Structures are given as C-alpha cells and as structure tokens.
C-alpha cells in the first residue's frame, strides 16, 4: 500500500518536472565544455542562465533541444529522453536560436505555415494560430516579404511566433532580446510571463541582466562549464548575485 502511494507521489513529482538533466557532460576534441551537470526544472517558472562568453551556456541549451548530443548523462523533456525519443521530446518545446535566421527566401507567413506543418498541425489549426499569435507584434507590413529583408529584430519576432505556434509547454531561448526595440522587449517579456501563467516553462540564456532581472524567477550562473550559482531572483538583485558569484569563483 505504502509502495503504491510512494510511486504515485514520485509520478506526480515527475509530471511536474519539465526539464531534467542528469549528469550531463560535453566534450569537444577531449576538452570538457560542460561538466557533469544535473538540474530539475519544474513547470510554470522562468529560468535564466547567465555567465561570461565561452562559459558553455549555448552548448548546454543546444544539448537540451537536441542539436548536440551529450557525451555522457541524459536530458529529459517531460520524461522523454531527447536523444532516445527525440520526436516526442521535441513536440513539447519551441526553440529560438541566438541567430534566428532561417530560409531567407520564405516570407514570414510561409515560415509560420511551414513550422505549423512540421509540427503536425492541421490546416485550420495553423490558420487559427497564425491569426492568434500574429497580433503579438505589429508585423503586418512585412509578413508577406521574404525574410532576407528583415531586420535582426523582426527575425527575432518571427522566430518567437514560430516557437509559439504549436502551443508548446516549454520555451528555450538563446539570447531573447538581441535587436529588439524597447517596446518589443517589453512585449517579449510579457509574452514570457503570460506563458508562465499558463503553466509553461521558459529557459533562456542571456547577457542582458536587466531583462533577466525583470522577467526570470530563477537564475543559474555558469562559468567554465560548471553551474557555480543557482538561486531565485528577487527584484534588482541579479547584478549583485552575478558579480558575487564570479568573484567567489
């Protein structure tokens, strides 16, 4: 009886864990880039990872989304191993790269329709979702143009819309606000808050401490492939946390 009760609790806990890293390491040419990292990130929160250039942040996020394979350890997205069950795992998240360029010859609308189709959505569902999320940013005048003519900020906005099109449970973002104007940064941050309110989990990597300070709940500070600090953020505290962590190191 007790055993069943305990298993139930474990199952419920597991369901609450959106992203789980267990002993993840990555080596490139015998150089260790990520050292034995373990994390359990629950749903309904915004996590940020900061650290100096070359700390291993982008490598870690690329492993989380399946662009790189860990040398050891495993990464689970709502219990699905990203290496062993990539399709199931990828259904659950959206990702925005630090360089959001893709298929310059497609228009923004075509790109969104392509994403919807690759995500397995039905025709009507794609049209409805494009209508719903199309109002997030004022993009009407450029949605029909090939993306080759988009500014860096417009590419970032289209990338966010494409990451949201299938109503994912997790958003992974590498550098969320590069190239965005102040008003769009605010919209972007509010979208993340809205996403969190609906039990979504956000994990983003950034160098913009003010954005992380305003919108993230929890910070990981990474240096030389090791998470050196892991703590909740209270308003306007991130600068001090970051500097203390690097000085302690």
């Amino acid at each position, binding site marked *: 009886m007790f055993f069943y009760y305990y298993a139930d609790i474990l199952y419920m806990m597991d369901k609450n864990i959106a992203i789980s890293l267990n002993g993840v390491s990555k080596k490139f040419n015998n150089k260790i880039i990520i050292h034995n990292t373990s994390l359990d990130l629950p749903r309904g929160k915004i996590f940020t990872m900061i650290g100096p250039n070359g700390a291993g942040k982008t490598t870690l996020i690329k492993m989380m989304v399946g*662009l790189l394979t860990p040398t050891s350890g495993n990464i689970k997205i709502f219990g699905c191993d990203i290496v062993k069950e990539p399709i*199931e795992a990828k259904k659950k998240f959206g990702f925005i790269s630090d360089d959001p360029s893709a298929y310059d*010859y497609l228009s923004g609308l075509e790109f969104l329709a392509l994403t919807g189709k690759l995500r397995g959505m039905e025709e009507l569902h794609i049209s409805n979702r494009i209508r719903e999320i199309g109002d997030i940013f004022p993009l009407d005048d450029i949605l029909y143009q090939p993306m080759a003519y988009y500014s860096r900020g417009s590419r970032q906005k289209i990338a966010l819309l494409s990451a949201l099109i299938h109503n994912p449970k997790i958003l992974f973002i590498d550098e969320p606000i590069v190239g965005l104007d102040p008003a769009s940064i605010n919209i972007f941050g509010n979208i993340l808050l809205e996403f969190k309110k609906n039990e979504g989990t956000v994990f983003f990597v950034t160098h913009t401490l003010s954005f992380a300070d305003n919108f993230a709940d929890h910070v990981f500070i990474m240096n030389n492939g090791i998470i050196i600090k892991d703590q909740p953020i209270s308003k306007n505290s991130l600068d001090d946390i970051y500097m203390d962590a690097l000085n302690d190191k």
Partner: protein
Amino acid sequence: MINSFITLFRTDFKIILFWLSKRPISKIIVIIGFLLLFILIDRIIYSSTFIIFSFFKSTGVFGRLTALYILHTSIIMLIWFAIVSIMLTTISRFLRINSIISFLITLPISPTIIVSWIFFKTFIMNIILLFIFIMPILIGYANVFFEKISFSFLSIIFIVISIISFFTTSIGTILGYIIVLLFKTSVKKSLMIYGIFLLISGITIIKLIYPSNIKLFDYTKGLPEFQKIFHSLPLGYKLNPTYWLIDSIVSGLDMRIFILLFFVAILTIFTIKMISNRFIIVFQRLQEYRIVNNSNKENRIKILISLQELFKITNYPIFLKDIISILRLSSEIGFAIFIASLTIVFFILNFVISNKVSESSLFHEQIILFFFSSFMFFATAYLLRFSFPLIAREGGSAWFIFTQPISKNKILKEKLILSLIISIPFFILNLFIWEFYKFIENNIFFIILTSITLLSIVFSTIIIGAISPNFDENKDAERISTSGPGLLSLALNIIIVLINGYVLHLFINNQQLFLISFLSIFFGNAIIVLFIYFIFSKNNNYQF
C-alpha cells in the same frame, strides 16, 4: 594604392591558409583528389586529340588544315564558355548580398583597387581553367605535328592563353555589368536576358564553327580548291583575330600577337576604369532597388499568400520549401539557365558533327559512348550543384529544422523526392534524344540503360550529400559541391557511368542481353541500395 591592392591579395592568401589549417589532412586529400581528377580529364582529352590528330596527319595537308580547324574550334568554344561563366559570376556578384564588398566600400580604399582586385581574382581562376582545358589539346597537336615540345612553344602557349584570359575576363565582366545596369530592378529579367544571350551566342558559335559552306568540302577536288574553301570559312579567315592566335601557336610569334597584347591591355584598363567609375553608387543603388522592389508588389503578395496556403495542406513541406528556394534564389536560377543552355548548345553541336562523322560506320560505337558519357557529365554537373548540397544547405537553419518533431529520415525522403523531380528534364531529354542519331535502329535499350544510370546518379548524389554534409558552408552551394564528400560523390558517379558505359560497349559489340541486364542492374544500382541502407541507419549523428 598598390599597398591596399597587395593587402587584399595577402588576405585572400591568409584565408586559404586558414582554410587549410582546419582539418588539414582531409583538405590535402581533397586537393590531391581534384588534382588527380584534372590529370585524368587532361589525360583523356590529350589521348583523344592525339588519336584524332595522328589520323589527320596521315592525310597530308588536308589533314593538317582540318586539325588546325579543330584546334581553332576548341579555342572558340572555350572563349565562349569563359565569357558566359564570367558574365554569370559578375551578375551574381552584384545581385547577391555580398558582405565582403559591403565591408570593403566602408573602408577608405579607392573603388579602382576593389574592382582591380575582383578582376584579377577572376582572371587567375579563368587562366587556370583555360590551361587545364587548352593545354592537353595543344600538347596533343604539338606531339603529332612538331614531334617535340620546345620551350619557345610553351612560352607562346602561355602568351596566347594570357591574351584569351584577359580578353574573356574583360568581355564577360563588361557584359555582365551591362545586364545588371539595364535590369537592375529585376533579378529574373537579368537572368532571362542572360539565358537568351547564352542561347543566341551559343547558336551563333555553332554557325561559326559549322557554317553552311563547310559542305563544299564534300565536293572539293585537289588541294588549291580545299585551301580556298578553308580560308573562306569564318574560322579560316585570315583577318580573324582568333586565327592569329592559332597561327602563332602553329607558326611562331609575329607582329599580330603584339597587336592583340596591346588590344587586351587597353581592354583590361577600360574594363576596370568603366566599372570602378560608378562602382560604389551602382552597388548601393542595387541594394536599395532590391529592398524597394520587394516591398511594393501586390501581385507578389498574392503569390505568397497562395504558397502559404500550400504549406498548410501539403504533406511534403520540406520539399515545397526547397522548390521555392530554387525558384526564388537568383544564384540557383542563374546556374540552372547556365547548365541548361550549355547542354542545349553542346548537344546541337554534337548532333551536327556526329551525324556527319557517322557516315562511316567505324565511329558508331565511339559516337554512342561519347554521347552517353557527355550526357552523364551534364547530369552529374547539374545534380552535384542542386541535389548534393540539399542537406548541407540546412546548416544555416539547423536550429529550426533539427528541433522540429520530425525524423531525419523524413527530411531525407523529401530531399530524395526533390532530387528526382529536378532531374526530370534529363529523363525527358533522354526519352527522345537518341532519336537524333539516325544510325541507331532500336533505341529502347539505350533509353533504359541511360535512365537506370541517371537514377543511380540521382540516388548516389543525394545520399553522399547526406552522409557527411558540410553544414558550415551552407550559404555556398559551390563550396559544398567541391568539398571532400563532393569529390567522393563525383568519384562514385564516374564509377557508375564507367560500369554502365561498359555495359553499353558489350551491348553494341556482343548483344549479350542477359549478362548486360545482370551487370547493369547489379553494379549500377545494388551498390546504391547499400548506400541508402547505410545512410538511413546512420543519420542520427548530425551535431551543431
């Protein structure tokens, strides 16, 4: 001024060294591979010209004049080829976003330096390619008619090829620049005009090489009459400057070559001056035109809306995306026009000459094998440029495509379908192209064998492109095609063509149908099935 020019070339040299320093062993293998490939091509060209020229030598003065005509024809064809390829390079350079030129025009460097640097880089590439293709023909000629190759002969060849290279680089650059200036608001119009120019100039060249009065040779009696007809032909005309080039190779240098040297020097200076005068303004305006042109077109919007709808209903979204990339990217359309026009001009010339030569049944097998291998050469060039890079070109969008919940096999399958679709023009061409050879009575076997070989090449090209895709070079299809795996794909295609060519040889000579079918199906295709199995089971290793 000269320091900036040298610095630009030194930077190019450093870029090459940097490229070599990354995975040097594989790069050296690629370089050696290409050298061996060029040696093989040169050896084949040399051997065929040597055999042909030896045959003509045995027929005395008639043969010597005919050999001279063939020499002239090959040089005219290479001049045409060099001009049209440099035109395409020039058009693409202006119409594509070029980050290096964009950077250079922000520096305090004179436009003359930038234009000269571009011009001489093109000149160097051009002269290397001309050497590769002209040298074996000229050495073949010299070995037959002079029986030894002297230092002075090699010096003359060097001067002649330099003149041709300066001439073709200048003319190709000027023509490309004029097309861009005339049709600056439309990439498609520029490329269409380029295509029309290619076809018209190609057909003119054929008319020049094979004019109607060439038939008079059939009725000539005696050498004086033969010589009279020879010098009345456009290529035999003594005031034709290309005739001067040929004459200097055969008879030694004279004043005419110095006149040509002076002419190409003036032409080169004129070209650099003409383009550098308005280079920065033209470059900036083209960027502006492109942006304005793409933001104000309602009909374009309608097309985009319908394609967006198509994305929602198709089960092959990656295939549709790739089709759009071919139709919308000027570099892709430009190359398609280039290869299509070359194929058409080559085959028209081939039919005209082959049907003349085929009057003697001695050459039937050679004509068939030559046609088969040249058909496959064009198909391979086309597929290496379009099919081979299909996977590697995803490198720039890897963050997107490889984080979607789709299997890599689905991506591969759609790329394979695309490869088959884009090779349809070659399958159609194959269906009726054999009809042109009047001496072939039953062409079914030829059509089937060529189709099987083509199918094998389509499969092998896309599959080798997927085994080790060069994701880093995703923006440059040419670089992807000329990387190590590109060379491997080319080698595999050559093997497939050789095996099927051997089957063709067996069929023509022995009619051993059972053996032929077995060899064809087994070697030509079973090897490809193995590759398909290999790649579909090992394709989970892509990392970014």
